[in-house]
């Protein structure tokens, strides 16, 4: 098994001034292994950035412990110079252009690859001599993406690195990420809420909601770990009886129920006999449903968030293998 490079135990964070409000992080524990691509997923305000800030010593924990490369990262150069953290809104000195930023990164990161940086800058059509202050939102994000990839740090955090990037540029980022990671395996933590876009790149998924971890699993075991059963409501009820229901929606005499678990070939055949349709649940749908379910269980006001993501493609799933 891969070596564990991050260990987080009982991490709790209260922001000053949040009063009696809920903590930003509430007893979070997880670990991260070397040379994998992780997805840190969750809604806005779930606590993703807070976790990454504490891991990179840019924020303090209220309670709990954090070990990165086996050490406390706080003011620890031996840990921090192995980490690259690309923030969603990275600030640069006022008179910096992209070239300046790359030079500074080259000084800091031992594995910096200048030719990769130049190639990526060209791919993203980044004006290297224009002051960063004057760049568009997308170009600013591109500067971060270039630094994050070209630094080849042992541990790289991308905190929603795609803001302002159009679909073409985002695809370019994902492609270059896979390419470079394949050639130079390293640990990458990608926070995103464009889950569908990044799902296939991830080896492991950690989902955080309201300061707590609600999913922590291999991406491959999550894929196909839930299934949506649709058809005549009465029959759907019979078929899903006794199973863990993640989500339920109805439409007249029809119902669509998302259940946890993998169906056997026999169960698939049974569903077919009942005239029920089985549809796959994407990672994004799974995260949305689990997140909503959590909110409902908590009984919080926004719990019933009207996020009834429609089961768009009820493509009939064939039993295979």
């Amino acid at each position: 098994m891969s070596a564990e490079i991050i260990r987080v135990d009982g991490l709790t964070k209260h922001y000053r001034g949040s009063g009696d409000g809920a903590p930003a992080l509430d007893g979070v524990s997880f670990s991260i292994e070397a040379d994998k691509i992780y997805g840190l997923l969750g809604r806005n305000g779930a606590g993703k950035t807070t976790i990454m800030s504490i891991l990179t010593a840019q924020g303090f924990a209220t309670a709990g412990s954090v070990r990165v490369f086996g050490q406390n990262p706080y003011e620890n150069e031996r840990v921090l110079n192995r980490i690259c953290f690309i923030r969603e809104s990275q600030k640069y000195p006022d008179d910096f252009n992209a070239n300046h930023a790359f030079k500074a990164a080259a000084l800091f990161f031992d594995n910096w690859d200048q030719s990769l940086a130049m190639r990526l800058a060209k791919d993203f059509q980044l004006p290297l001599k224009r002051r960063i202050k004057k760049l568009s939102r997308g170009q600013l994000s591109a500067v971060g993406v270039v630094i994050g990839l070209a630094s080849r740090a042992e541990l790289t955090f991308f905190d929603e690195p795609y803001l302002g990037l159009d679909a073409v540029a985002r695809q370019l980022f994902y492609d270059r990420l896979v390419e470079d990671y394949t050639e130079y395996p390293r640990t990458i933590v990608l926070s995103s809420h464009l889950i569908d876009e990044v799902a296939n790149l991830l080896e492991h998924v950690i989902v955080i909601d309201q300061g707590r971890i609600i999913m922590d699993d291999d991406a491959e075991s999550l894929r196909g770990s839930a299934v949506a059963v649709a058809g005549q409501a009465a029959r759907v009820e019979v078929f899903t009886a006794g199973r863990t229901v993640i989500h339920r929606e109805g439409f007249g005499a029809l119902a669509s129920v998302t259940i946890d678990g993998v169906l056997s070939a026999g169960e698939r055949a049974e569903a077919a006999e009942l005239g029920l349709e089985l549809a796959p649940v994407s990672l994004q749908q799974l995260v949305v449903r689990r997140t909503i379910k959590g909110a409902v269980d908590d009984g919080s006001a926004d719990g019933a968030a009207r996020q009834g993501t429609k089961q768009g493609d009820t493509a009939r799933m064939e039993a295979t293998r």
Partner: protein
Amino acid sequence: MIDDSKPIFLQIAEMIENDIVDGVLAEESQVPSTNEFAAFHRINPATAAKGVNLLVDDGILYKRRGIGMFVATGARDKLVGRRRDEFFVQYVKPLAREARKLGISSGQLAEMLGKEIDTDGAPGPTERVVAL
């Protein structure tokens, strides 16, 4: 292409299997590398490797040290045999179910099948998904 119906490594394995059954990947020919699969399908390389290794464990592919993955001799027969076993459940049963629903008799169904199989000539490999 890759969808959400099941783990991606299974889908990669199936694509390679399809190519072997169709003859796109001949026995003893080299299979694209894990990294090529990852780049082409935009998936995590570890996932692609898992799919390829599944077929190695199954004896469908074998590894030549330092060169790459190759299709084993006898792989096609093995896969065709397995698929014939699955054919009834996967294709005949749903077909019969739909036919019943539409009131198509078994005679009519047999006639349609006969017409389709005889006139179509070689079932087109063009309809198949080619892995790479």
